[in-house]
Structures are given as structure tokens and as C-alpha cells.
């Protein structure tokens, strides 16, 4: 618990939508005695306790690990996915980033490919369906090889690891003015294009994942680069450049 002088009050405007088929609207709330060290989600928890005490429906939002690694959380805060700080998840965002008395607008990650389920919860199943089309290795890669049997340069290994850092939260889509999933798809494709295990299915993977990304109704990329700023894992739009190279490469191999 935080000491009294370090607590703040906020005016909240939160998107409330009872279910996928109803229309939603912004509803105003007030909250006080929020600790500066509280995370954004803990602040919402606190709000929900108040709402339940008053017999109102709590605000639905998603979270799981609450330590920035699972990708479950994610809301738009004052128009920015995961809030004002770059490279952070909503669960890792602290209330000290907001001034006492400030109005905070909380809305869902918005894209037609991410339909709202309830309040701030969106269905990110589109990502799963893209992954199903090639975000894995399905050839028999054998049992675990002898260490260092597969020589992979340090730079390559690190670069693949940077792409693999994606937690699938969807902030790239939510931040993109075009609602494009290029960063998510690019990261998956680059991660596997860099490694030997990914070579066998490399061509088909690029074609199939792009096809699914388009079928899900994500927009096209205009190189605004907003996704990189919004990504909690700072995944570079270099991955989108790779996506284009891999797609072009596939044109000559399929």
C-alpha cells in the first residue's frame, strides 16, 4: 500500500460494450486514492472493486502474467496502445506516468480483424489463424541435436531472437493507422527465415501467412512505423522489410 500523499485521483472515460453484437460507448468514471506505483491494470482492478460494491458491472479487460511476457493485456490509453510510454505493456505501465486529476481515455485495441468481445476485450483469434498457416516448423527436425552441431552465427541467432520476442499482443495492429498486421507477420516470417530449421517450408510459409493476414481483413502497410514504437518488445520494422523480401523471393520459388 502506498502512503496517502502519494495517491492520485483520475477521471476515466472507458469504452463499455456489453457484448460483440451491441454497440458501445464511452462512460465516465472517477477514481481516487490510486497509488503512484500501482500498475494501470491494478488501477482498473481498483475501479472494478468500486463498481462491484455499487452493484455495477465491472469493466472487462484481459490480463494474465502481469509482468509483460504473455501478451494478454492491452488497451488503448489516450489513443496509444499500451499507453504513453514506448516499448511497454499495459500491465507494466505505472500510474506515476499520469498527472493527478488527469482525464484518461481507455478504449479497446481497434481493428475489424479484432472484434470487441466485451468492453476492452477483443478477439485476437486472427493472429492464431495466421500462425496456423505457417508460424511453426512441421517437417521432422529430428530429436534435439548435439549442442553446436547446427552452426548459427551469433548475429543471426540474436536477430532471430529479436523477432521471436513478439508476445502477440496486437499493439502493432492497434497502433497502425491502417490496422495492418505486417509487423506481427513479418516477425514470425523473419524469425524462421533466419534459422536452418525454417528453410524447408520457407517459401510456402511466406505465401500462406500473407494470404491469411489478408483474408483476416488487416489493412496494408504504409510505412508509418508506428508499430515499432508501440511494440512492447521494440520489434523493428526491419521485420517488415524482410516480409517484403521473403514474399518477393517466394514469387520466384513457388
Amino acid at each position, binding site marked *: 500500500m502506498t502512503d496517502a500523499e502519494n495517491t492520485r485521483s483520475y477521471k476515466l*472515460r472507458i469504452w463499455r460494450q456489453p457484448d460483440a453484437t451491441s454497440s458501445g460507448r*464511452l462512460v465516465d468514471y472517477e477514481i481516487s486514492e490510486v497509488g503512484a506505483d500501482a500498475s494501470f491494470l491494478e488501477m482498473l482492478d481498483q475501479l472494478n472493486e468500486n463498481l462491484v460494491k455499487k452493484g455495477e458491472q465491472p469493466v472487462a479487460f484481459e490480463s494474465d502474467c502481469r509482468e509483460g511476457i504473455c501478451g494478454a493485456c492491452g488497451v*488503448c490509453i*489516450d*489513443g*496509444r496502445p499500451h499507453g*504513453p510510454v*514506448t516499448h511497454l505493456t499495459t500491465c507494466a505501465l505505472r500510474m506515476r506516468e499520469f498527472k493527478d486529476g488527469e482525464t484518461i*481515455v481507455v*478504449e*479497446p485495441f*481497434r*481493428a*475489424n*480483424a479484432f472484434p470487441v468481445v466485451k468492453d476492452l476485450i477483443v478477439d485476437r483469434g486472427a493472429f492464431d489463424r495466421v500462425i496456423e498457416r505457417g508460424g511453426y516448423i512441421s517437417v521432422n527436425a529430428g530429436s534435439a541435436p548435439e549442442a553446436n552441431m547446427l552452426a548459427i552465427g551469433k548475429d543471426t541467432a540474436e536477430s532471430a531472437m529479436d523477432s521471436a520476442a513478439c508476445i502477440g499482443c496486437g499493439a502493432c495492429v492497434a*497502433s497502425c*493507422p*491502417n*490496422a*495492418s498486421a*505486417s509487423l506481427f507477420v513479418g516477425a514470425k516470417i523473419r524469425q524462421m527465415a533466419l534459422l536452418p530449421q525454417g528453410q524447408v517450408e520457407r517459401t*510456402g510459409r511466406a*505465401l*500462406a501467412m*500473407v*494470404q491469411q*493476414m*489478408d483474408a483476416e*481483413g*488487416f*489493412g*496494408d*502497410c*504504409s*510505412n*508509418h*512505423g*508506428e508499430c*515499432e*514504437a*508501440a511494440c512492447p518488445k521494440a520489434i*523493428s*520494422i*526491419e521485420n*517488415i*522489410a*524482410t*516480409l*517484403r*523480401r521473403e*514474399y*518477393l523471393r*517466394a*514469387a520466384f520459388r*513457388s
Partner: protein
Amino acid sequence: MSAPRFQLWSSVGKKLLTGVTGLALMGFIVTHLLGNLNLFVGSEAFNGYTEALHQMGALLIVAEVGLAALFLLHAISAIQVWRDKKKARSIQNSVVATKGPPSKQTAFSRTMIITGSILLAFVILHVAQFRFGLFGGLEYKTMIDGKEVRDLYRLVVETFANPAWVAGYMAVTLLLGAHLRHGFWSAFQSVGLLDPQLRPLAYSAGGVFAVIVALGFFVMPMYLFLFATVNP
């Protein structure tokens, strides 16, 4: 499910297309700027230059049709990107803001469709005006090396004796600069050429490129208005 194939009209295919056509158009715009520097030299230099182009005969027609195709492909693929964006998010959040660096989202990147559309309308007018003599002047002739050739210099100078044309062209030039501020680096990214080392370089180069191209075309109408006269 049948194996998917490469599709030029997929999201990624369209970006390869806007990128390649954007790069080619930038090549054209630089060539056009360099050629038009002859306007600063005078009537003989400029008419000699345009006559040399006309001497290319069938090759020039091929180049012109190719250019028209480039513009069309660029515009169609870019407009399609914009239409898909509209389809991808039908409900907007009430507040939308950028996170700042490393985002490259700017007023320039957000208005590509506007600057581009105006450029398209301008290019059509521009070609009609000077290539096909929409407002007359197609019949102007002059002598170069004892040969009668088209006096395009006279048409250009007469056009830019009118302050309205001067102002209009200068305004479009600024929009071209705005288009290129985002377009330059974006085109290289679209064809997959940029990595984290090259990106800041391409982004800065884009600023320099946009200013040089815009400035080059910007001073031309003003110079002609102030200093150029048609030979008697």
C-alpha cells in the same frame, strides 16, 4: 487448401508495387528537373533539349506510354492501400495519438493520399497544357540550326507570365516535396531494402531529396515570371 501463390494485389504485393513505381517516378522526377534546368539557360538551350527528345521518335512514345503506366500503377496501388485501410477499421477510437520516435508517422505520411491525388490531377493538367497544348501554343515555332522546331520555351514563358499559373505551380511543388518527404525512405522500405543501419540514413536522405526536388521546381516558375522574355 491449394498452395497459395504470389499475388501482386495482396497487401505485400501492393507495397512492392507502390515502392517500385515510386522509385521509378523519383528517377523520372530527377531527370525532369535536370532537363528543365535548360529553362534557366534560355530559349535555344531549352528548345534544343526538347527537340533532342522529339528526335527520339518512336522511343519517346514508348517512354511516354511507360511513364503514364508508371503513374497509373502507382496511383492505383496506392489508392488501393488507402481503401483497404478504410475497410480494416470501420470504428475509430475517439482518441488517436502517435507514440513518437521511433515512429515515422508524420503529417507527411498521413497525407500521402491527398498530396498524391493532387499530384495526379496536376500531372494530367500539366501534360495536357504543355504536351498537347490544351490552352494553345502548340503552333509556336522557332528555328534551331536552320530547322523549324516547336517553340516550347515561348509557351512556357508565356504561361508563367501569368501570376496565377506561377502561384499554382509553386503550390503543387510544395505538395510534391511533402509527398517525397515520406515517399523517399518509404519506397526503399517497401521493396525490403532497409535494415536498422540504413533506415536513419534513408530517412535523412529523404528530407534532403524532398527539399532539393521541391526547391528546384519551386524557383522555376518564379524565375521565368521575373526574368524570362520571349525572343521576338
